[in-house]
Each structure stands twice: as structure tokens, then as C-alpha cells.
């Protein structure tokens, strides 16, 4: 069996062209793409063959035998025959037809055909098309049920062994695309079936519910529960009705053959799809930028289905993207504007609410000047909405006081890249991460926070021998798979990174040619590394000197290396410097500007990249055009008819909070950001929100920030609007309105447009495409961006020239630093972290996300399935730490505290966390870790040092209840008080962390072929 060659699954600008070559098929000459599986290439011709088990992203797995053709007198599976010049095959011979028909018959022996009442009968059932295409006209063998029951133990999907054809697509996807390695087939069993962890219930296995298996299943064996009984015209029939109906049709089939049944089901599919919408959108749960089709009927979401042409994710999703959209229809969505009226909020019309906002903002500007107002844009909103947020601040209000939540996370990474190479974004694409021969992740829990990228890394490691180096405080999932795992002391990444750089220079391992031709500053940089000996690094980081040396050599020897980093780096008071250290290391080794190389700060929110790119940032107009640049200022003054804008930058998020405390900022306009919870030192922020004279909040739900508002405006969710997002690869993608906004909610762009209109600026936008057209005119970086070029799954990676040429890989010819074409090595010093453990606060408290939830859980805690998997936050610690603090056990309630605040939550024991350290997921509105974080920021980016936190711990059994699922905190109180205290482990017994994966080499079809009852069709 030929192994399919490794290729990146995400859109790959470096992929070789598949040149058409001449192939003879049934005596005809066809020109087919070189290297493509023949079955795939034939699909678009008059010589198509079925190929039930062939899914392009999986490659040939050769389990179904429906694609057989003749070559040189032998039958071969055409999925496993790559197109090559001179290839000659016969498709339409009696022998090949008979063999394909035989293969089709075998498939329906284990799959009961009741297409018309099947939830998968959506016009694209691969199995049905395959059986029909194989020439099966009458079922030869009686259907054989298995002795296995339906497994519906997972909250999101179910497996029906009686419908399973054992094609193994699901196994291949789990083993070799997602690489959780949960699924297998027991080929040697009397009655083979798909197994989870070798035979566990799905809901108690290592399955992370990413949905790959469901997406690639060619029939209804694996199906989203949201589809079951809902998708078809007749699929909701009661069981008492359904079974006789199937019997009836089966009996008729013996007379009529299958064709009438196929036609009947085709008619039903046409009818059901006339009542079902399929709309492309882009996920909002992280910066990967997964796109997919959403199947809906009215507001009901039937399923989410990623497609191969999704540029970032292809067929991949994580549990949130595939299954986590319940919040859109949550009962407590805001559906009408609210106005603070004494000691309560009252509902108001849009006219009244917007009139009030316009009047109050105008009064404050008149009384205190434009800089007494500020706007916070949303990293979850669209690019167009970011542009309008800053346009509201700059053009309407007259201030540069505009910022977004990248201030809390990614600004240091951007600073590190601005200092060294030029653009504040990923150097390449996800496909470059896949192409790399070595990937190093630093301070990134990629498997939980960027799950699809983690899947790509696991796949590259498993299938292409990519070396994986992971540096993190926790031995999380990706760390457990790493070839090298480095566990530094908290806040010391700069030290070991610089020590690696020093080793590379000392041992003459640097890329001298690259340095000479493309990089400045080597001498100063070399001198700055003087203190960073491996021995010093060992003393300060805890990583032994030899490991630092060997890792440095490994890195320098890599043909193509990428570094990926995230909040574990940036949320330190040295975040910008540590980010810079990684860019330095890549420059030193020549790892920029080639496929498979580069620096990748993994953006955490769906549009945190775009929110800054499109201008919601205090120091730049859209496209990073400096506010102090005379020509730029003149351009915008002319375009916006406002010539009094300052040439100095405005306030960032922290500056706004400080200015409120100082009495200088009187109005704050917040678009979809939960600043009362997510900003560091939350109490301090909340005090500011109490003080500010006028606060406006756009929100989906009545958030904690909304509690302080004067006016709350109900906003549309991403599924309810058009627009674009920019993912971590700088990729701009369109999202389409899947359903209209709930109630009287409105998209942010429309709210802003109507507010501007009331304040004398008549923007006149009726669709976001008009906003993008204006952006393209004013912003060189986006000169060629238009909705026409972003139709469907088309995308563009900025910078985009006016002719539409984009840049999937940056710096191929030149860097973009300060107008030069050269990069710069940037000298660095080390400073000690700000909040280190001491006698009073003995434990370092790390914090971040978990796979199942996004941020504080405002969205994902409203998904019953996600809340079932992880009901609440917890504090994770090692057994030794637990022993040292009174013999704590999983489920015990504890209080963490410092001088700023405290939280109470349950203990989870694990070996992922180092001794003396804690990990607290930020997913809670009650146990808010930011009640304890400090005001310390990175001086270069103003990003809070969220990860520099020392706390004390004490038992708190029965003191406080923090149950879930559902909305937390204030919401729960509104619903009539808390339920009982939960007890036991904070994670359910069936959580995937406790599963036992069964790694193997894909579907392992040779084991099927070795069965006594298997014969090759046609022999």
C-alpha cells in the first residue's frame, strides 16, 4: 500500500502546482492533475468511479474497494493510484464494474438503507452516492445487524454500529488528522466496530469531541445529536411508526430494486434542503480562524460542517467550534436596549437609547473636551466594526482614546516583532507551521487554546517526523507529546532563550549568510548575551545547562524552524522583551522568509489581530498608520472632514481606567468587552466603572460590565451578521449572516452608524462591504481587500496590494523595519518577575483557558454540553503541593488569596502542574482570578502581568458555593439563589483527561485484508 505523502492540510501557498498530465482512461486521453489520487481526478470526468472511503483531507485509506479499476489486467484501488504521465487504466470493463458492484453490496450488508427517513439524507450522502455509483441496483445479501447498541454517551454526537460500514474514515481522522488517537477498529473481532479507547463508552474516553469523526463519516453512523430526528421531513417519526415504515420499504425493495428508493430519497432530500439554510461563517472561539458551513432551520442550528476548502482548518474543528453555539439562542440574550433609571434598568426603544447616548456624549465633549471620552473596541466583533469603533472615537468624538483587548494579551508579541522584523503579525501561515522540521512552542497551551493548530502540530510530528519542543510551566497535552519538554521557573523564558542564542553564537551555529545579507545589530546583540551563560540560565530557570545546549543545537540544526508563543510569554512584565528574544533566535538561525519558518504569536480571540489592524488602537489609524505622521493625519482629516485630531497617541485601556480614577475621563463606550472581569486587578477596574460619568455597553448578555452601564445596547452575535475577521495568520475571511439578530438586537456596525448619524456624522452605511471599501481607499495595507475577493471561502492575507496580491508568507524578499529592508537583532536585559512567592504567598498561580471554554465562559457556559464537560473553574495542583497544604484532595474547597482579593474554588489534583505552583482556569464569573492580579504591566506594551501572581491557600470547605453549569454570579442570584454545593472532583469522571488513547497508524487496513472472511473483490 503506498503511503500518501505528507502535505499541509491548511491552505498552503508553497504547495507545488499539480500540473496536468496525459492519462489514458478507457482508451480516451485525459489530462489530470499530477500526483492526485486517480479516483479524485476521475471524479470531475465522464469516467468517475465511486470512492466511499476517500476523503481528500484524509488521503487514500483503501477500505471500501468501491473505486476499483483495471490496470495492466489487474484490479487496483484507484484511490491509491496517483496520477502520473502515461498512466493507462480501464474503468468501464465488465470485470471492474462487477468488482465495484461487489464492493457496494458489501457496504450495505452492514448498513440499513432507509435513506428517505435518514437524517444524513441531505443530498450529499457519500455512501448512497457510492453504492449507487458502484452499480448496486438490488440488495443481494440481507442486512446484518450488529450485536452492539447505539452509544450516545457523548453530549454532542452518537455512534450507531448498525449503520456503520467500517470505512475507517473516522479512525483515520482521529488518528492522523486530529491525532487524539482515540478511535480504532477491532479488525480481528468477529463483529468489528469502531472503538473509543479500545472499548470505552464515548463519554468516558479520551475523545475531546472535536467532531472530526462526525464530519468525515460518509453516512449516519456518527452523527451530531442536534441532527438526530431533526434533519429530515420524516426523520422525527415516532419509533412505533418508523420501524414498520422501514419494513414496508424493505419489502417493496425486493420487487422494485433500489433505484426507486434512491429516487424517492432524492426527492425527500430536495424538499428538506429547500427548508434548510447552509451558510458559511467563521468561528469566534480563538484566533485560528476556522470557517465552516452552518446548517440551520430558522434559528435552530442543525449542525456545523467544516469543508476541505476552509483555508485555516479544512475539515478540522474543536469542540467549541463544532458544537458550542447554544448561546446564540440562550433565553437571556439581550433583545432590547436598557437604560439605567434610578435603582434599576428599564427597557427602552432604540430611538430613546441612541438619543440619550448621543446627547450625553455630546455634552461631555462640550464640557470636558474630546479626550474626556474613550472607546473600547471588540476583538470578537468584525474588522468593519473595529474600523467604525475607531471612527466613532476619532471622527465623531475627536479623540485617539481607543483601544481593544489586545492590550491584555498580544501587544507584547506585536512589540517584539515591530522591534526586529517589521510587521506585528504571524510571519507565515498555519501551513508553514506544518511544513517546519522543528516547532518550538513557548508559554502556549496550544491543545486547549488553539486546538486546530495543535492538531496540525501533532500530525506533523506523527506523520512527518517534525521535532516538537515545548516550553511551559505545565506538562500539558502537547508537552506530553514533545520531543523536548522544558519547564522553566515562572517568568524566566527570556533567560533560557537568550542562553540558547548565546550557545548558537558561541558554537558558531548561526546562519552567517542570512545575518550578513539581511540582519543588522549582531555585535550589540552578541554583547548583550554576555550574562546568559547556560550555567546562569540553569540557576535562574531550573533547566539544566546541558539541556539548554542540546536544545540550542537542535534548533540551529533544524532546516526549517518556527516558534509559536502565547499568553504564557506575553502576560508578564517582560512580555515584549521575551517576545523579542524569540524573534532574535529566529533571526540568528535564518528562520524567516522561507516556507516552514517564522514567528507565530498565536492570537487568542477570533479578531484580536483584526481589531488592532483596523484601527481600534490608540496610536495608529487603520493599517498601523501613525497618528503622529503628518501625511497620514492630513489624509484622514480630509476623508473624515475633521482636521483637529491630535498628533499624539491617546489613552490605552489601562490609561482609560487610570484617567477615570484621576477624574480626567468622563465617558467610556465599551463594545463587547467584559472589562470588569478580564482586566487585571478587577476590583480597581470596577471602582473605575462606578466612577465614570457615562458608560455605554454593547453586549449579547447582561454582563458584569453591563451592571455598571448607563445604557446597554443589545448586540448581534457573529452568526447574526455579515463582516470579516482576521485570524492569527493575518487571513481576512468573510462571515455571512446565518440567522437574523434575535429580538431587536442589532449588529455593532449598524448601532455605531446610527449613533454617528445622531451626532452629526452621516456615514450612511447599509452593509459592511461599504465600510470595507472605505477602508481599502484609506489604508495601503488593505488596498486590495474587497468583498468580491472574499466571496465564500476565499481569503486574503495582509498586506494586500491594490491588485489583490496578498502575502501568505512575509519577508521573502525584505523585512519592513523602519523603512529599511533589513531586520534587527535587539539587545535585551532580564528583570525579575514582579510578584514572586514568599512566606505569606507561597504558591505561584498560573491561569488561562481550558479546551471546552472560551475565556470567562459568557458564551460557552451557555452550552449544556460544554458545561457538562467542564462545569466550573478549579485550582489544579500536584499531589505534593496538596500534601504540603494539609493533605488536600480533588474536590476539596480552598480559598486562594493575596492582598488584592481572594477566590474560592475546588481542588483538582494532577501531575501537569509543577510542585509549588497552581493553575486556575479563567472560566468563571464567580471565582475570578483577576480579583487577585495586579496593576503591574509590561512597560513596553502596557500589558498586565497576569501570570505574575503569588497567592496563599487555605481550606474553605462548605464556606462558599460555586456551582455550575449555567450563567454564574449575578445571573444566578437573579434566578433565585444558588443550588446545593457540588462535591467531588471538579471534572466529571468521563472527562477526556482521564481517557486512555490507543495510538496506531491510521485505520490499519491491512488488518482488515488479513481477515479470513475478506477477499479482494473480483478475485
Amino acid at each position, binding site marked *: 500500500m503506498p503511503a500518501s505523502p505528507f502535505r499541509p492540510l491548511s491552505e498552503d501557498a508553497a504547495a507545488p502546482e499539480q500540473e496536468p498530465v496525459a492519462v489514458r482512461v478507457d482508451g480516451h486521453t485525459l489530462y489530470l492533475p499530477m500526483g492526485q489520487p486517480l479516483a479524485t481526478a476521475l471524479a470531475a470526468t465522464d469516467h468517475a468511479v465511486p470512492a466511499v472511503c476517500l476523503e481528500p483531507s484524509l488521503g487514500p485509506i483503501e477500505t471500501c474497494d468501491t473505486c476499483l479499476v483495471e490496470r495492466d489486467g489487474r484490479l487496483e484501488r484507484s484511490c491509491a493510484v496517483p496520477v502520473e504521465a502515461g498512466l493507462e487504466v480501464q474503468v468501464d470493463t465488465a470485470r471492474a464494474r462487477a468488482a465495484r458492484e461487489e464492493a457496494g453490496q458489501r457496504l450495505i450488508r452492514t448498513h440499513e438503507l432507509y435513506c428517505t427517513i435518514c437524517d444524513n439524507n441531505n443530498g450529499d450522502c457519500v455512501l448512497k452516492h457510492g453504492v449507487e455509483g458502484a452499480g448496486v441496483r438490488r440488495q443481494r445479501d440481507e442486512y446484518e445487524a450488529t450485536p452492539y447498541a447505539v452509544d450516545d454517551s457523548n453530549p454532542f454526537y452518537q455512534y450507531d454500529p448498525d449503520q456503520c460500514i467500517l470505512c475507517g474514515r473516522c479512525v483515520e481522522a482521529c488518528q492522523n488528522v486530529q491525532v487524539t488517537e482515540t478511535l480504532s477498529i477491532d479488525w480481528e473481532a468477529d463483529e468489528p466496530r469502531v472503538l473509543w479507547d479500545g472499548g470505552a463508552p464515548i463519554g468516558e474516553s479520551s475523545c475531546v469531541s472535536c467532531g472530526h469523526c462526525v464530519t468525515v463519516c460518509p453516512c449516519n453512523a456518527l452523527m451530531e445529536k442536534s441532527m438526530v430526528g431533526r434533519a429530515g*421531513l*420524516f426523520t*422525527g*417519526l415516532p419509533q*412505533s*411508526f418508523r420501524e*414498520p415504515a422501514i*419494513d*414496508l420499504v424493505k*419489502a*417493496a425493495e*425486493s*420487487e*422494485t430494486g433500489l*433505484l*426507486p*428508493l*434512491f*429516487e*424517492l*430519497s*432524492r*426527492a*425527500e*432530500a*430536495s*424538499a*428538506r434542503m*429547500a*427548508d434548510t439554510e447552509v451558510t458559511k461563517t467563521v468561528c469566534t472561539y480563538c484566533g485560528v480562524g476556522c470557517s465552516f458551513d452552518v446548517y440551520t432551520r430558522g434559528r435552530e442550528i442543525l449542525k456545523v460542517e467544516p469543508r476541505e476548502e476552509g483555508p485555516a482548518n479544512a475539515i478540522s474543528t474543536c469542540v467549541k467550534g463544532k458544537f458550542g453555539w447554544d448561546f446564540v439562542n440562550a*433565553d*437571556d*440574550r*439581550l*433583545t*432590547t436596549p*436598557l437604560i*439605567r433609571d434610578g*435603582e*434599576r*434598568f428599564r*427597557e427602552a426603544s432604540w430611538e430613546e437609547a441612541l438619543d440619550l447616548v448621543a446627547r450625553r456624549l455630546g455634552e461631555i465633549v462640550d464640557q470636558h473636551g474630546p479626550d474626556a471620552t474613550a472607546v473600547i473596541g471588540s476583538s470578537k466583533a468584525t474588522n468593519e466594526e473595529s474600523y467604525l469603533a475607531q471612527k466613532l472615537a476619532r471622527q465623531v468624538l475627536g479623540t485617539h482614546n481607543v483601544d481593544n483587548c489586545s492590550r491584555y494579551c498580544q501587544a507584547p508579541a506585536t512589540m517584539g516583532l515591530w522591534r526586529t522584523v517589521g510587521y506585528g503579525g504571524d510571519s507565515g501561515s498555519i501551513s508553514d507551521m506544518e511544513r517546519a522540521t522543528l516547532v518550538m512552542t513557548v508559554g502556549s497551551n496550544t491543545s486547549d487554546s488553539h486546538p486546530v493548530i495543535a492538531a496540525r502540530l501533532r500530525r506533523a510530528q506523527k506523520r512527518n517526523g517534525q521535532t516538537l519542543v515545548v516550553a511551559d510551566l505545565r506538562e500539558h497535552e502537547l508537552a506530553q507529546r514533545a520531543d523536548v519538554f522544558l519547564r522553566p521557573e515562572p517568568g524566566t523564558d527570556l533567560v533560557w532563550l537568550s542562553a540558547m542564542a548565546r550557545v548558537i553564537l558561541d558554537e558558531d551555529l548561526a546562519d552567517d549568510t542570512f545575518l550578513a545579507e539581511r540582519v543588522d545589530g549582531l555585535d550589540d546583540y552578541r554583547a548583550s548575551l554576555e550574562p546568559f551563560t547556560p550555567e546562569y540560565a540553569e540557576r535562574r530557570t531550573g533547566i539544566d545547562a546541558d539541556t539548554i545546549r542540546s536544545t540550542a543545537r537542535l534548533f540551529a540544526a533544524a532546516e526549517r524552524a518556527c516558534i509559536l508563543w502565547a499568553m504564557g510569554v506575553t502576560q508578564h512584565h517582560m512580555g515584549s522583551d521575551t517576545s523579542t528574544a524569540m524573534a532574535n533566535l529566529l533571526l540568528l538561525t535564518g528562520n524567516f522568509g522561507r516556507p516552514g519558518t517564522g514567528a507565530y504569536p498565536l492570537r487568542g480571540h477570533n479578531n484580536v489581530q483584526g481589531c488592532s489592524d483596523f484601527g481600534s488602537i490608540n496610536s495608529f489609524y487603520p493599517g498601523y498608520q501613525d497618528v503622529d505622521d503628518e501625511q497620514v493625519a492630513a489624509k484622514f482629516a480630509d476623508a473624515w472632514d475633521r482636521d483637529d485630531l491630535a498628533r499624539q497617541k491617546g489613552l490605552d485601556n489601562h490609561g482609560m481606567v487610570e484617567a477615570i480614577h484621576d477624574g480626567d475621563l468622563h465617558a467610556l463606550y465599551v463594545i463587547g468587552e467584559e472589562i470588569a472581569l478580564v482586566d487585571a486587578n478587577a476590583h480597581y477596574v470596577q471602582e473605575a*466603572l*462606578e*466612577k*465614570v460619568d457615562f*458608560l455605554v455597553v454593547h453586549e449579547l*448578555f*447582561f454582563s*458584569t460590565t*453591563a*451592571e*455598571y*452601564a*448607563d445604557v*446597554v445596547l443589545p448586540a448581534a452575535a457573529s452568526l447574526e451578521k455579515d463582516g470579516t475577521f482576521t485570524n492569527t495568520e493575518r487571513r481576512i475571511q468573510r462571515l455571512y449572516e446565518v440567522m437574523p439578530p434575535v*429580538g431587536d438586537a442589532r449588529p455593532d456596525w449598524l448601532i455605531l452608524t446610527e449613533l454617528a448619524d445622531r451626532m452629526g456624522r452621516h456615514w450612511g452605511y447599509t452593509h459592511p462591504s461599504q465600510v470595507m471599501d472605505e477602508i481599502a481607499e484609506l489604508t495601503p495595507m488593505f488596498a486590495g481587500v474587497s468583498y468580491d475577493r472574499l466571496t465564500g471561502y476565499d481569503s486574503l492575507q495582509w498586506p494586500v496590494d491594490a491588485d489583490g496580491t496578498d502575502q501568505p508568507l512575509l519577508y521573502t524578499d525584505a523585512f519592513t523595519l523602519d523603512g529599511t529592508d533589513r531586520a534587527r537583532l535587539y539587545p535585551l536585559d532580564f528583570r525579575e518577575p514582579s510578584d514572586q512567592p514568599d512566606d505569606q504567598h507561597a504558591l505561584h498561580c498560573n491561569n488561562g483557558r481550558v479546551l471546552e471554554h472560551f475565556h470567562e465562559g459568557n458564551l460557552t457556559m451557555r452550552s449544556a454540553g460544554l458545561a457538562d464537560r467542564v462545569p466550573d473553574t478549579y485550582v489544579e495542583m500536584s499531589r505534593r503541593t496538596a500534601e504540603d497544604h494539609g493533605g488536600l484532595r480533588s474536590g476539596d474547597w480552598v480559598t486562594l488569596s493575596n492582598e488584592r482579593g481572594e477566590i474560592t474554588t475546588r481542588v483538582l489534583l494532577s501531575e501537569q502542574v509543577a510542585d509549588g505552583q497552581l493553575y486556575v482556569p479563567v472560566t468563571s464569573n464567580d471565582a475570578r482570578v483577576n480579583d487577585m492580579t495586579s496593576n503591574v504591566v509590561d512597560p513596553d506594551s502596557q500589558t498586565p502581568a497576569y501570570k505574575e501572581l503569588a497567592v496563599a491557600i487555605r481550606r474553605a470547605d462548605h464556606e462558599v458555593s460555586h456551582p455550575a453549569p449555567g450563567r454564574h454570579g*449575578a445571573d444566578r442570584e*437573579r*434566578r433565585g439563589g444558588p443550588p446545593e454545593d457540588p462535591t467531588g472532583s471538579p471534572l466529571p469522571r468521563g472527562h477526556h483527561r482521564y481517557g486512555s488513547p490507543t495510538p496506531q497508524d491510521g485505520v490499519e487496513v491491512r488488518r482488515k485484508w488479513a481477515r479470513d472472511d475478506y477477499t479482494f473483490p473480483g478475485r
Partner: protein
Amino acid sequence: MARPLSHTPAHVDHRTAQRQVDDFVAALDESGLLRALTGAIRAHPELAAQVTGRIDPDDATAMAALAGLLEVPDPDAARRLVRATRAGRAAADDALTTAEPPTWLELVRRLHDADVRRGVGAVLAGLRAFGRVMSRPA
């Protein structure tokens, strides 16, 4: 000074009448009736009407059209088909006048009768043609 205030969105209470209508429609939907109806209506109403109109066995033109639709090449077979359709319609009229409808079990038992199976086959063949026409562009 803006004290934090809680608020419960009045998502449901102010729309009771609308909810009752929604519940009624949802019940229709769950029964399958609404879906079947709307799906069939939205699919290809003109085609459906056209096809239905053409399947009138008392009309000579329709007979030819029906034979064509069902891909029956032989004129004798087409005549047989029309006769069978007439007989089937008469039998169906009789069946509809009986007081008690057959149970599902009785229906399944009747499938052992070769004539019944033949008839079901013919109906399904007709449905096949119907489905084929429906799935083609108008």
C-alpha cells in the same frame, strides 16, 4: 457614581401570546406535519403541480406522458400500466371507505401477497420518476 445593578432580561414574559402561537407551531413541527408540508411546498411547487396534472390515466396524452416519465418504452406495457393505475385507484377508493384502517402489522403481513408487492413496486417506480423530475433543474 453608578452602582452596579443587576437586571434580568425580560425575554419571555412580555410575549406570552406569541409564545402560545410558537408552542402550537412547534407542536405541529414536532409531529412532522409542518415540515412535510412546508418542505413539499417549497421544493418545486410548479413541477409538482405539473407532474400531478399529467398523471391522469383517463387522458390519452397523459398516458403517453406518464409512460415517458416512467421510462416505459413498450406501448403495451404503458397500456398495462395505465390499466393497473385505474384498478389501483378503484381499489384504493374501496379501501378508504372501510371503517377501520389496517394496523401496521396487517400492512406488513399484506406484503407477503405478491400482488401487493407488485403494486407497491409500481407506486415506488412512479415515485422514482417523480423524484427524478423533482431533482432536475426546472
